[in-house]
């Protein structure tokens, strides 16, 4: 079973695999789902909240969505404490760029820099990789609206629609069939609800469990993250449930 190659993050196994990195990805496979959809007028990020205890004091507005810079937003899936460290580092990287160039850091550069940091943990230092996958949504004047995903190995890629966390494979195949390239945000929001509903079939989908935000470009030339209010989310879920009831009746 080549167990002896497990514990050192910096060693390859005889089959040429990095076990620690794969185990990190396993950890993320049990974490709350995050969905991202790139529409022509904005980006949608939908996250499943795992911690919904009514005793919890809501200090932060969002559990899984973070603003990284004036033009970028991210959502996380995985070990929360690892995620906090990465978000701090991302914010620092973005601000350092802004300090040097007095311009917002282009999206891909931020993602790539962070991924270089993550990759370092898979090659040297003797430390374990971060057990977090991130979805990054942002705008820059080079490529407009962009959606990226990165994982513990330090790999990243740009997506039109993707999903991380629990049941992500199911979500991605669902998005595969229903996503259209020239979708608008108004069409993407019900699609996100539809996909989230499908993958959370064990636990019933309620508005408290969902965090949805849209990233859009305003006329003044700023990038805004708007969190969809809970009532609106609840309405959308009810609408979806009605649609499903109608479909099963036919």
């Amino acid at each position: 079973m080549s167990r002896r190659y497990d514990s050192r993050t910096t060693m390859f196994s005889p089959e040429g695999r990095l076990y620690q990195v794969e185990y990190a990805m396993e950890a993320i496979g049990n974490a709350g789902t995050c969905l991202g959809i790139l529409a022509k007028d904005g980006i949608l990020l939908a996250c499943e909240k795992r911690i919904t205890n009514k005793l919890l004091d809501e200090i932060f507005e969002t559990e899984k969505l973070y603003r990284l810079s004036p033009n970028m937003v991210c959502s996380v899936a995985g070990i929360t404490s690892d995620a906090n460290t990465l978000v701090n580092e991302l914010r620092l990287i973005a601000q350092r760029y802004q300090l040097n160039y007095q311009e917002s850091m282009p999206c891909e550069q931020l993602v790539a820099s962070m991924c270089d940091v993550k990759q370092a943990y898979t090659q040297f230092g003797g430390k374990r990789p971060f057990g977090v996958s991130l979805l990054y949504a942002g705008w820059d004047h080079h490529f407009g609206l962009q959606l990226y995903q990165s994982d513990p190995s330090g790999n990243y890629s740009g997506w039109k629609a993707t999903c991380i966390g629990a049941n992500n494979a199911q979500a991605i195949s669902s998005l595969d069939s229903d996503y259209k390239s020239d979708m608008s945000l108004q069409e993407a929001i019900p699609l996100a609800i539809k996909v989230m509903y499908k993958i959370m079939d064990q636990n019933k989908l309620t508005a408290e469990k969902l965090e949805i935000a849209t990233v859009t470009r305003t006329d003044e030339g700023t990038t805004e993250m708007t969190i969809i209010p809970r009532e609106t989310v609840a309405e959308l879920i009810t609408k979806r449930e009605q649609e499903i009831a109608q479909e099963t009746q036919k």
Partner: protein
Amino acid sequence: RVHGEYISKNIQLYSMRNGYELSPHAIANFTRRNMADFLRSRTPYQVNCVLGGVDKSSSRPAVYYLDYLGCLSQQPFAVQGYGSNFLYGLLDRHHRADITKEEALQLLNMCMKELKIRFAIS
């Protein structure tokens, strides 16, 4: 000269890494940051600069004044050196926001002439 090469090679590196160029605004600020950081080191740069560029996407031209103390200012026109005492007045008088390229060249010639007449060292 060394400072200039350092800056221009870094700009090239940026283009190679990212596939697109830095904007004039970013380059100006990067240069200023470099100047300011080295100011309080053992090896400060003693270079005064005038920077100019055209942004590729917006086609907007920009001129910057950057001195060895790290003061950066975007201006319609910029002068460094002793000649600035003479030329700022001339430029102020003749420059307009909507000046054309040909008029600007004429203005530049006017400045050179002024220096030859007024400024003792050529």
